[in-house]
């Protein structure tokens, strides 16, 4: 029975790909792509999109890590719960609104977009850093302290490595959402692949829509996959043994 289901699954997959291929051809996407001018525009928008993503996620990661680390330090531990809750509330504001509000205060263009995306991406990283470090078994820290490891060493050699898996999951979530949300930055004048998508929708030009939607999807999938690799690279072998 299981074997049968898997066969059906594989079959469906192939069918979907074929149908998609045909459908895409019929929408005129291939024609669009064969036009060098259009191609250039798409590539430019892609780089723009990538730029927005990379800058905002970098800042967000640094900020998120810092927040997560700070709130696991002895002194600030009691504020952790409250702080996380407040930041969490911030996440309930729809991404669109965050971008739009940034526009209201910072005008249009790249800067408000990057600003908004950075803020939006901080939470997953911060929350997971906090959770990851908190989950490090207390006896490890106790052992480290008792052996005479200075607090910085404990952070770098014990807490962070053991929390890395969870932190990377947070990073991955933040990154993927970031890529998707960056598409909306078109609406506040920052360009990116969202340009193609929204123009495609308003003008009912499916090929434009797909020219935007497919790269962005591919970007997200590739980023997700790269995060897998990152996880293998950064998480100590000793911790992955139980997987």
């Amino acid at each position: 029975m299981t074997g049968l289901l898997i066969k059906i699954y594989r079959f469906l997959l192939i069918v979907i790909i074929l149908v998609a291929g045909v459908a895409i051809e019929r929408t005129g996407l291939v024609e669009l792509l064969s036009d060098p001018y259009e191609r250039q525009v798409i590539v430019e928008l892609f780089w723009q999109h990538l730029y927005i993503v990379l800058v905002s996620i970098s800042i967000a990661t640094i900020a998120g890590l810092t927040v997560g680390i700070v709130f696991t330090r002895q002194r600030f531990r009691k504020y952790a719960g409250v702080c996380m809750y407040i930041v969490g509330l911030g996440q309930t504001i729809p991404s669109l609104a965050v971008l739009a509000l940034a526009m209201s205060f910072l005008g249009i263009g790249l800067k408000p977009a990057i600003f908004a995306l950075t803020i939006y991406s901080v939470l997953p990283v911060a929350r997971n850093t906090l959770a990851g470090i908190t989950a490090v078994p207390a006896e490890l820290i106790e052992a480290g302290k008792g052996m005479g490891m200075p607090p910085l060493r404990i952070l770098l050699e014990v807490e962070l490595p053991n929390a890395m898996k969870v932190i990377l999951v947070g990073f991955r979530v933040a990154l993927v959402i970031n890529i998707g949300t960056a598409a909306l930055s078109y609406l506040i004048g920052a360009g990116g692949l969202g340009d193609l998508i929204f123009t495609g929708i308003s003008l009912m030009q499916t090929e434009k829509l797909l020219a935007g939607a497919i790269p962005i999807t591919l970007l997200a999938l590739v980023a997700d996959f790269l995060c897998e690799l990152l996880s293998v690279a950064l998480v100590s072998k000793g911790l992955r043994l139980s997987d």
Partner: protein
Amino acid sequence: MITYDAVTKIFGTGREAVTALDNVSFNIPDGEIVVFLGPSGCGKTTMLRLTNRLETITRGNILIGDLNIRDTDPVELRQRLGYVIQAIGLFPNKTIAENIATVPKLLGWDKQRISERIDELLEMTNLEPEMYRDRYPAELSGGQQQRVGVARGLAADPEILLMDEPFGAIDPINREQIQNEFLRLQAKLKKTIAFVSHDIHEAIKMGDRIALFYKGRLVQYDVPEVILTQPKNKFVADFVGADRALKVLGIMQVKDTINRKPKNIINGSDRTQDALKFLDEKGFRYGIVVERGKPIGSVTQKILKYEECLVRDVVEPYPLLLKERTSLRDVLSFMLMYDAVTFCVVDENGSFAGTVSYNDIQRVVRESYADEAESNGDEET
């Protein structure tokens, strides 16, 4: 030497203050294992943690050698002391080698020296370096992990080791083995060790001295024999257990009470009737039969009476032979198991060395408790 001088530790303030330790003073001599023993909450772990400043002392002083630990940087202090905990606490993200190298790296040893030290320590703790260096803690059993924990504590060759129920998380069978290994190691290394335990058996086995704590006070501090035979008060007597006579026997060995020249020795080549006459004249109910210097069994007058042959043909063999280092407790156990009152002792070559009888054991216990019996009178059971 570690000196504890009027050490007091109070947690919390005002009405919620808890006095964990109250004016405790004693010394740990160099090269000895002192077990901090007591029920949960008695303060023994706090005592240990004050020593490496994981807790801060409220009043009093702790000196390591001549140095007051208050005057040392806590981090530096801890690097000088070895610390082994119950939960083991091996860093799962590091290999065994990296774990052990932790303190040496902090102290700035060079790579070569660290590497050699790692191999040395792994061998000392019976873990083959080739096999275990690059493994991760998750791949090791509990007993193996704790051996690494001990190795890690010894890594920088500290003079002093602090151990907090280090073998508590290991199953009883492995625990005994690792305790024995540790004692062998200590015989070679002669470290000064503070060892926290709640188990009286472990304390007796491991400790050169025992510091017994109760509700934050040091109740009795002495060698195990004295604590067992001269408990200071009811608490100590109850804590060591009503079977403390047996426990004392556990510390004593055959060589403490062996009778090296028993008088009722018969040769296996003697004739039965001659042997019978010999036993009768001397008034012995039974005789120990020895041949070519090795004991082969025993005979009673009853066995010899109706036989006309050599003693060796009718001898009843001993169920087992004791070594000089066998504990008297085990001897008592054998006596009960085999329903015998006398056993022969042999040396490494199997040659007859003497006998131990039930009377000998009784005598030895009576002598240890002689003082106590006088001071306490009949008090229990």
